[in-house]
């Protein structure tokens, strides 16, 4: 009767080693000033972007495989997306305030 999906151990190991690799990668690139190695005008923030991209990848792996979202009911996926959506709202609108301080000639910090 059970609709539980049992994942083979090999998948888990693959994911684990993937996570390890990404961990070392992110530590490695953290010490490099990536902007220096890229042509043209690249801002300093590229390091942040790379680190976050790696972190998001790692988190996705954990969520999809360790947390079984890959094989989950649609509803659980919706919950995952919903929480991401609302966290995005929190960030987007709060930062919209900070980043637009001083616009339109109205002073602010």
């Amino acid at each position, binding site marked *: 009767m059970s609709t539980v999906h049992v994942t083979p151990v090999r998948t888990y190991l693959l994911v684990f080693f993937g996570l390890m690799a990404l961990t070392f990668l992110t530590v490695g690139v953290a010490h490099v000033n990536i902007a220096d190695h890229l042509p043209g005008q690249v801002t300093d923030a590229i390091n942040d972007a790379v680190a976050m991209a790696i972190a998001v990848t790692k988190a996705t792996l954990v969520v999809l495989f360790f947390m079984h979202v890959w094989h989950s009911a649609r509803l659980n996926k919706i919950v995952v997306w919903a929480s991401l959506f*609302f966290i995005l709202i*929190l960030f987007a*609108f709060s930062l*919209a*305030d900070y980043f637009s301080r001083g*616009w*339109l000639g109205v002073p*602010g910090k």
Partner: protein
Amino acid sequence: MTAPATAAPNALPSYLEAAHGPKSWLLTRDHKRIGILYLVAISVFFVLGGLMAVLIRAELATPQGDMFSSDVYNRLFTMHGILMIFFFLIPSIPAVLGNFLLPVMIGAKDLAFPKLNLTSWYLYMIGGLMTFGSLLTGGIDTGWTFYTPMSTTFAQGQVLVTAVGIFVAGFSSILTGLNFIVTIHRMRAPGMTWFRLPLFVWAHYATSIIQILGTPVVAIAILLVGAERLFHIGVFDPKYGGDPLLFQHLFWFYSHPAVYIMILPAMGVMSELVTAFSRKRVFGYHFVAFSSLFIAVIGFLVWGHHMYVSGQSVVAGAIFSFLTMLVAIPSAVKVFNWTATLYKGSISLQTPMLYALGFIGVFLIGGLTGVMLGTLGIDIHVHDTYFIVAHFHYVMVGSAIMGYLGGLHFWWPKITGRMYDEFWSKVGALLIFVGFNTTFFPQFILGYLGMPRRYHMYPAEFQTWNVLSSAGATILGVGYLIPVIYLLWSLKFGAKAPANPWGAKGLEWQTASPPPVENFATPPVVTEEAYAYETSVPAKEVTVGI
């Protein structure tokens, strides 16, 4: 809805008779009993908060501060706001009526997690007692909004204890919402499809989303305030590089949606009342159902309208104002659909319906003044004046509490198995309506005149309106006293209630009053849409006069 349950409603002992003694209450897992536990607790907090309101109004009858010192006055309105919002209004309809009715309405035996439900109540009580304890040991003087750096660095009193109390109560609210969502998804009776759900359930679904996703943010904000107080570190105090506006963002990210935690369940009650007392299908079922979800989601996008003049960027102000305008539309849709439901109905003005009609009138004023506040050019004048105080009492005291009282009267026979006195309940409803408007309408005028809120003393020219407001509060207080008396009276002396005293539709009316432990003698099967009044003539069950 046809259900075999009607066959022999009295075969099983009711949930009230199934067990006896304090332990059977304090360790119960029955959602109905937990609903009663909440009912008792929130009533106590309401009376406490209300008594503080009475003291506030007494003080404000004269321009000088002659009853209390400024400090005591500040503690009064702070505690009044905190108790009323976090410990009365937010749990009111969901935790009492929702807890009691939601499983019954969808034909389930209980909520999905009965133990968790009881845990929620205990968390609520712990939070409430901590806050009450802080009240006894001096209270706090931050305002219910806890603005930093006032709350972190300058405020006196038990900020930490209160903060932790609210934090704990917040988790009670989160877990209730979680329980509701799982229940609605997973526990519906056979045949109870999404679009057969009563609108009360839809409203609670939307409310639960807000509870789960909004509350944690205020929890962390309050926790940081606590940490800042405890360790004297700079999270929000600009002296140490903190940003006070960040607190406001985190606070309102929750506290604006929280106002919809308060009003959405009341709107759900409204949909039940309007249909039951006009014996008609709701007009535009889908629109009313989805408008709840729409309010819940858009409600998360408008919090900055509390911060128009806070030093937030003007661009952000404009964005938030725009979105605030949008959130008014689904509320409008609901009001119009309720009105249209009355058309060609069979309208009966029994007490719950009086509350429902009162709700519409009061919500119109509260909501439309909300739209005025959302308008940037007006808010720069009335922000933090009594105009705001009037607005939010119109929506919270006027609308949400009227919804709550309407619902309580509607389902009282179901919950207790007793009928209350028809005459006195109408007198009470009328008195509350009159008292309410006398109290809070003058505050709009005061607000536009410029009287600031949270003022212990005020210029003499504002006195007349304040006296009127205080007089109204007296009427209102008496108005609230009346239901307390006749409802308690009905427990002992009220006539026995039949299963369906109003001739209403909905599964809860198909089981006994009060319901048995697992709600139905036989599990119901649903074959109709909600409010299908045209398919049956509820002749025999009707006992109360027209």
